[in-house]
């Protein structure tokens, strides 16, 4: 037992009953006189004793600061507002910059016909006015070796000045895919020159679908690419009218464009 006392003394723990949470709460809030721990209650009461005069210095400085803050309040508020407005305008600029970079890149890709097929078609639908070409199979299926004889002068229909003869072959009939002329060119080139790159199955299928049968492809394509009025039997009257939405100067025809392509 003596050992136990020595141990608790050494550990600095009280020989009194150990303070529990309820007892602690009473000590922290209640009248110190009712405490079972007079020493501790005395300490806590002394810690919270009324202020001494030396603890009440500094009032005038605090009040002066309070009054100064009152005078400065208006400018402070407007300064905060200005800062907010600045922050907002910076944010708007950054957002605009990001949008230009993102959208600009997409627009450039769309304009040069470099978007994946479906996206290119969407871009075309949305921005045909700006000269975004439609989805085109030309880059893949119309190699640069296409005989020049088949290609009319590739004046972009969207070029505002001096379009000599907006030919049908530079535009696609409304009822056929805009890629069809390119496919036709490939197909015809293959027919004329057996050494030409073979037509792949998908191209053939598309052409057959457009022509209404594989055996009609020759007639269909010849008619489509021939200069003159609407070639397709199913074409609507307006189909042959060149529109800015089909500049027709699909990428990769191997012919220099007379003028630099300009964005509207």
């Amino acid at each position, binding site marked *: 037992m003596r050992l136990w006392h020595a141990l608790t003394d050494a550990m600095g*723990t009280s020989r009194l009953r150990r303070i529990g949470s309820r007892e602690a709460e009473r*000590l*922290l809030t209640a009248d110190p006189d009712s405490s079972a721990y007079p020493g501790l209650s005395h300490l806590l009461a002394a*810690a919270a004793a009324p202020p001494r005069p030396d603890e009440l210095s*500094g009032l005038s400085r*605090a009040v002066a600061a309070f009054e100064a803050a009152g005078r400065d309040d208006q400018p402070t508020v407007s300064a905060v507002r200005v800062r907010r407005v600045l922050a907002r305008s910076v944010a708007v600029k950054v957002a605009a910059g990001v949008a230009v970079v993102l959208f600009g890149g997409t627009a450039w890709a769309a304009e040069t016909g470099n978007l994946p097929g479906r996206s290119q078609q969407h871009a075309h639908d949305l921005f045909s006015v700006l000269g975004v070409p439609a989805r085109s199979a030309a880059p893949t299926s119309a190699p640069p070796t296409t005989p020049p004889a088949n290609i009319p002068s590739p004046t972009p229909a969207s070029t505002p000045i001096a379009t000599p003869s907006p030919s049908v072959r530079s535009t696609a009939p409304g009822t056929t895919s805009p890629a069809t002329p390119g496919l036709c060119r490939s197909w015809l080139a293959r027919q004329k020159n057996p050494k030409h790159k073979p037509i792949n199955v998908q191209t053939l299928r598309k052409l057959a679908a457009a022509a209404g049968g594989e055996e009609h492809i020759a007639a269909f394509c010849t008619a489509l690419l021939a200069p003159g009025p609407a070639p397709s039997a199913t074409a609507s009257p307006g189909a042959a009218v060149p529109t800015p939405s089909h500049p027709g100067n699909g990428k990769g025809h191997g012919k220099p464009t007379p003028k630099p392509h300009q964005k509207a």
Partner: protein
Amino acid sequence: MDDAELAAALAAAVQGDAGAFAALWRAMQPAVLRYLRVIVGETAEDVASETWLQAARDLRRFSGAPPAFRVWLFTIARNRAIDDRRRVQRRPEEPRELSDRDVASTAPDVAQDVIQQSDTDWALSMIASLPKDQAEAVMLRVVAGLDVAQTAQVLGKRPGAVRIAAMRGLRRLAGHAEVQARRAERRPSLDLNSPRPKGV
């Protein structure tokens, strides 16, 4: 100052009344200063001053009742104290470890202790000898008069943690030989309504 008076002063001060602000200062400054003496030691006066500068600047935007005001004010005091300790740490000529031990060693002014070691000074130095979380919990509960939830708010802890810290602090204080020695001799002389006479 009871809560009703404090509420009235608070409302007027928020509207910009300097007299009301002075009343708030008188009501709260002693507790703020004592809390800071326990957690930052000798720079407590400066930190208290910074606390009130910030309070003076921001009080017009404060909205809330007296309990919320106490939490707000002691949170400012605590943040300023943390800043002060960072400043001290950065000062190379005064390398100081800011451990619990350090808080204990920077107890109330030595000079003042020599001249006038009051019961209050003694009590604060005893509380300052506790581990820091316990010392803070005890000070905010006993001196600032915050309840468990408010103390937890100031300290950014869960109420359970605050309860345990305060309880451990009390246990430790109760077991302290000096505290036990004082209980017999000092208690009758403790006069809570007037400043301690010199030399007590």
